[in-house]
Structures are given as C-alpha cells and as structure tokens.
C-alpha cells in the first residue's frame, strides 16, 4: 500500500508531518503567552522567581521554536508536493491567509530574535517585556491564519462553481467561513491550555523529585490556574464546535458518535465497540446528550450517518478520537479545579505525591487530546480534502516514491524528536533553578 499507492502514501505522510508539527506549533503558540504572564507578575510583584520562570521558559522555547520552524517549513512545501491539485485550487481562493501567515511568522521571528538576545541590554525591564507582545501576537496570528485555511477545507466558501469552473472568487469571504469562528477559537484555547498543563507537569515533577523550592510551587500554582481557565474555555467552545458540525458537517458528527439513524432526543455514546452488524456494544449512553451537543435542545433531531451515501461516510474510528479528546478535556478541568480549590482551602491531598503524579500525567494527556482532536477533524473529513468539492484521490500527487519519502521523513522526525528531549534535558540539568537564583541575587527572591 505504502509503496504503490501515492494517494495512501501522501495521506500517511501528511498525517505524520502534521501530527509532529502540531506538537511544536502548540508550544509555539502557548509558551509566549505563559512567558508574558510570568514576566508581568515578576515585574509587578518585583519577584525574581517569576522573572526566572520567564527566563527559563524562554531558554527552552528557543529549542522548540527551531524545530517548529523546521517542521512548519516542511509542511508548507509538502502541501504542494503531495497535494498539487489541491494547492492549485486553493491558491486561487485561500492563498490570502497563507500569505498573511508568512507575515505573522516574519513578525514573530524578528521580535523573538530580539527578545532572546537582549535580556540584559535594557535598563528598564519593562521595555524588554514589551518585546514579548509582538512575539505572542505573531504566534497567535500564525495559528489564526493557518486554522482559517483548515476551516476553509471543512466548509468551503467564497466562490462559485459554474460548469466545473471556479468563478467569482472572493478571498475575504473564503476566510470567514462557517467553521472559522469555532475552529480558530478552539485551536487557540487548546494551545494555551495544553502549554499551561505542560509547564505545570514540569513543576509538579520537580516537586515530586524532592525539590521543595518556592519557585516550583509558584510555577505550579500559576500554571494550573491559567490551565483551568483555558480548559473551561476549551470545553465551552468545543460544545459550539459540535453545534457547528451538526449544522454544516453532520456526517462528521454522526460518524464520531456512531449515530446511524436520524432520531430525536439522541443519546451520546461514549467508548464501546462495534460488532460486525454495526451494533454498538459496551458503550456508555448519556440520554439526550447528543441532541444537546448538536442543537442545545434535548429533544431536537440529529441527522444519522445512514442519510449519506456510503462512499461519503467518514471512517468510524473517529469515534475513539472524539472520546479521547472529550475525556481528557473533562479530566483536566476536574483536576485543575480540585487543585485550585484545594490550595485555597488547604486540602492536604493536593500536595500529596499521588496528586502531583496526576498533574504530571496531565501534560502528555493534553497533547494527546490535541492530536486526537486533529485526527477526528481531519480523518472525519474523509473522503474529502475540500469538503463537497474535491476528494483526496483527485488532489494527490501522481509522482512515484511517496512511500520512500515517508520513510525518510519518519527518520528525520525521530532524530528531531529525540534531539529536542536530549537538548532540553541537558540545558536544564546544567543550570538548576537554585544555581540560577543565586546568580541572579544571592538566592534572595525579592
């Protein structure tokens, strides 16, 4: 399959590259905001711990940004290499946000370079802080623009097809399509949420490993609080995404929910398996919940998958992606909420090691939710690359050797992934917090 079917190989390679890039992209979107918050608190409270937090995060960020830029460049060019027919069409309608994204990168790259290399060049630390604003803004705008492109693929708009010819292209209308508001906001909220929990996981891990430093406690409390806010936002927007799907891409929602027959007052299914007759077994049923997710009304009608021709039905595996995402979302809200209340009320167990292990687990879980979310959104769009207009078979390259390229890139990502971990560990091992604090001000945190 991999070596003799360019369509299949292109899909796998796209899956691989995007799944890898999204890890770094998420970090790239989220970390600047976290650095900003920490540095701002540090300047406000005149607390060196927070300044050091910003500094250390920025240091690690250099490494992940580099890999983010590299993998982003790869996916940018690979879109043309693997999906030439799609890019030819897309170039006519949706090139504008792609082009804007480049400016966002430019903007971010310039100020990031300045920010990273000027820690001690300003007498007034607020000036240095100001440099972060364009960095965070640029990163957010990158995500904003690229997600607009993805929204367009899910709900194309801004042009007419007359006799198979593309007419009346309207680049602005193509940017503001039906799925754009929920998609963009969900992607941004999840990036901030995930990065907050990733940093919380690191702080919790340090505390478990015996460091009892104030620094880690402050970091943990702050990141869990930020994470909670964005986790709640994520769930709320996720609910709106469901309503979008019900209205515009009902086949995706139906496939994700194994909802075959159109019915009113539909239940939500979690987990379970399908037997050979497409009967759902061992699933947890939440009565009326699917109708609520779809239309905000427990008795409303939800369209079932059987309404769609078989060749247009998305793969049913996306049910598990959806479950994974939602389960993790719920779990993270619960975990961070209990932690926050626990700290306020001085419940001892939130400081216990087993609770901290759960927080450590939350970091990788959040990334898993991001991956699951994208897999559900993209695999759930199958067989379309541009929903209702172009299928992946029509879009894929006709070149040979795509499968070989897959092997090549898989090797590359392996090296990059291992490299990131090794280098990050080395940086922080050589410079533990305690030592850096001493360097800053004789260990005195104020």
């Amino acid at each position, binding site marked *: 399959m991999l070596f003799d079917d360019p369509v299949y190989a292109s899909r796998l390679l796209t899956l691989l590259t995007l799944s890898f890039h999204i890890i770094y992209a998420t970090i790239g979107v989220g970390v600047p905001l976290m650095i900003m918050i920490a540095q701002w608190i540090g300047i406000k409270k005149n607390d060196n711990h927070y300044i050091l937090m910003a500094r250390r995060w920025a240091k690690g960020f250099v490494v992940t940004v580099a890999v983010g*830029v590299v993998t982003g460049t790869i996916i940018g060019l690979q879109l043309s290499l693997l999906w030439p027919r799609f890019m030819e069409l897309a170039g006519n309608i949706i*090139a504008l946000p792609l*082009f804007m994204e480049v400016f966002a990168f430019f903007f971010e*790259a310039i100020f990031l370079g*300045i920010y990273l290399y000027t820690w001690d060049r300003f007498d007034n630390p607020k000036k240095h802080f100001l440099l972060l604003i364009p960095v965070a803004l640029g990163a957010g705008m990158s995500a904003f623009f690229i997600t607009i492109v993805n929204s367009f693929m899910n709900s194309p708009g801004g042009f007419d097809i007359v006799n198979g010819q593309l007419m009346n292209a309207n680049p602005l209308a193509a940017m503001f399509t039906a799925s754009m508001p929920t998609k963009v906001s969900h992607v941004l909220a999840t990036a901030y949420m995930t990065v907050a929990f990733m940093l919380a996981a690191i702080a919790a891990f340090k505390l478990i490993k015996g460091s009892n430093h104030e620094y880690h406690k402050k970091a943990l409390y702050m990141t869990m609080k930020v994470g909670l806010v964005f986790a709640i936002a994520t769930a709320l927007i996720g609910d709106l995404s469901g309503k979008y799907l019900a209205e515009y891409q009902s086949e995706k929602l139906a496939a994700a929910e194994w909802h075959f027959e159109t019915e009113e007052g539909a239940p939500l299914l979690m987990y379970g398996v399908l037997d050979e007759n497409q009967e759902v077994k061992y699933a947890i049923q939440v009565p009326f919940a699917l109708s609520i997710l779809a239309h905000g009304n427990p008795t409303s009608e939800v369209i079932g998958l059987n309404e769609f021709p078989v060749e247009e039905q998305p793969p049913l595996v996306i049910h598990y992606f959806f479950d994974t995402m939602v389960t993790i979302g719920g779990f993270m809200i619960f975990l961070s909420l209990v932690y926050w209340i626990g700290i306020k009320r001085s419940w001892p167990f939130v400081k216990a090691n087993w609770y901290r292990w759960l927080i450590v687990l939350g970091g990788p879980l959040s990334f898993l939710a991001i991956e699951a979310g994208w897999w559900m959104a993209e695999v759930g769009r199958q067989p379309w690359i541009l929903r209702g207009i172009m299928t992946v078979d029509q879009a894929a*390259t006709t070149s040979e050797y795509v499968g070989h390229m897959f092997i090549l890139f898989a090797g590359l990502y392996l090296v990059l992934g291992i490299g990131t971990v090794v280098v990050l560990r080395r940086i922080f091992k050589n410079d533990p917090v305690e030592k850096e604090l001493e360097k800053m001000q004789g260990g005195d945190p104020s």
Partner: protein
Amino acid sequence: MSLEILGMSVLWLFLFGYVIVGSIDYGAGFFNAHSIITGKQHILSKIIQRYLSPVWEVTNVFFVFFFVGIVGFFPQSAYYFGTILLIPGSIGLILLAIRGSYYAFESYGTSGHRGYAFMYGASGLLIPASLSIVLTISEGGFVSLVDGNPVLDYVALFTSPLTWSIVVLSIAAVLYISAVFLTWYANKTGDVKATDLMRKYAIGWSIPLIIAASGIIYELSSHNEEHFSRIMDLWWMFALSFVLWLGTVWLLWKRKNYGLAFGFLVGQFALAFFAYGISHYPYLLYPHLTIYEGFTNTAMAISLVVVFILGMALLLPSLYLLLKLFLFDKNYVQGNKNKEE
C-alpha cells in the same frame, strides 16, 4: 505594470533576498565546519555564532515567503512544480531541517558535536545545490506530459552539463557571498585574524564564480536558444554586473572599504539575478507554463498585493530594529554586551 509582472517582481525580489541572506548563512556554516576540521575554529566560530544566531529564523522566512507567495500568485505552478519536485524538494527539506535544528541543538549542547557541525557545513553546500535544480528544470527539456501529468526525466537531468554548471555556480556563489560579507563583518568587530582569513577565501572564490556564470550562459546557447537570445538582448545588464564584480575584487585586493565591497557584490548579484529573471520572462516552466496562464484571479491578486504592502509597512521598521541591534550596534558586534542566554 500588469498584475502578473508585479506579482512576479515581488516574488523575485524576495527570492533575491533569500539568495543573499541564505548564502551568508550557508557559507558561514561551511567555513565554520572547515575551520573545525583544519583546527582554526577559534578564529571564526565566535563571529559566526554572534551574527547568525539571532537572525537565522528570519532568513528562513524569506524562503517560506517565496514558496507560499508563488502558490498564491501562480497557483498552477503548485501543480507543475509540486508534481515534479517530490524527490528533490523532499531532499532539500531534510537538509534544511538538519541545518535549522543545528542552532537549537548545537549552540546549547555543552560540547559541540563534531559530526553535527560537519553535517551542518555540508548541508550548507548541498541545499543551494538541490534548490538550484529548480532553476535548471525551469529551463525546459526535462519535463514531459504523460497522461496530462508532468513527469521529470531524471536521467536527462543528471546527465546534462547545464545542471552541473548551475550546481557549481550556486555553490561558488554561496561561498563567495558569504566570504565577502564575513570579511566585512569580521573587520567591523576588529578581529584582524578572521578578517584576513575571510578575505583570502573571498578572493579565492571570486574566480570560480565568474567562470561558472559564463559557463551557464554558454550551455544555454545550445540548451534553450530562445532564452539565450533574450539574455543576449540584455547584455548590458550582465556587463554592468561584471564591472561591479571587478570592483569588489579590487577593493578586497587593496584591503579597502569592505562595506562598499559588499555593496558592490549585492549590486552585482542583483543585476545578474534580475537580468536572468527578465530574460526568463514570460515562462515559469519552459515551454509548459507562462506567468499569464498560471496567474490567479484578479480579486486574489489585488488582495495579495494589498496584504503585501501592509505587511511591508509592518516589517520594514521591525527589520530595521533587528539590524540596528545586532548588525550595526558597535557594542554587540564587538562582543561587549554579548550576554546571550
């Protein structure tokens, strides 16, 4: 000026920007690796690190700008070039990835890994070589349409002398541009040893450069006569470019005004690059695709141009700030305030 030409000019300008800033970066990597192998690391590494680390991401965006822009302005080129370039493009991407990660992985590793520095240096030559293949392909003769889909003839491509002259030119150009720039930069930092070394490299690479460039024009006379005759119509641009090349070499020889020498070099390459571009007009890919057939719709073209102007209004001041802080700041350049984390 028609929108087609405006779009192409903007892209060509950015590609030119990438050729210059990218060459500086690629060549520096090569000189860095070379100096490690010959045990002269102490002379060059510091300069290379100080200049390149803060700006490499910006360099990369020039490249991204070009390939995103060309899909926007000329969507059909995505189809033609995307289909043919799967393998050369993928190899170029992998090399780019090795380089990009170098800054992250190596400037933090406590002890530089020799193997990585070596790959980094080698990729600095291989990337321009692999990217330059696109120029060769665009000259036509290597692509045929099979069932309506473009197919690249690798055997013809790799046995053509044109291909190899362009590869040699790209490598010579990278090393020459980089060496002249680093001579100037090292001189600014007041590092006499590094300046002398780079000056020697710069003069050394000026000759292969001009030989390779003439060689290509000669190859074209038989490979693509139409293009060749259009180049001849523009002989005066190439002649001017040659004069500027003489100027650079003369200044280097006399150890005078390295800043002006680099200025001449930019002028030399700009003239040659645009003369080549103009003579290539109107083809993107001989003889299959011209900028007129491949152009996007008017609404998209206008909005791209508007975004470009707005984007430039944002970028130029920021770029100026970056250069002011790192390239033209005396203290930073000389390493006095070099407290990078």
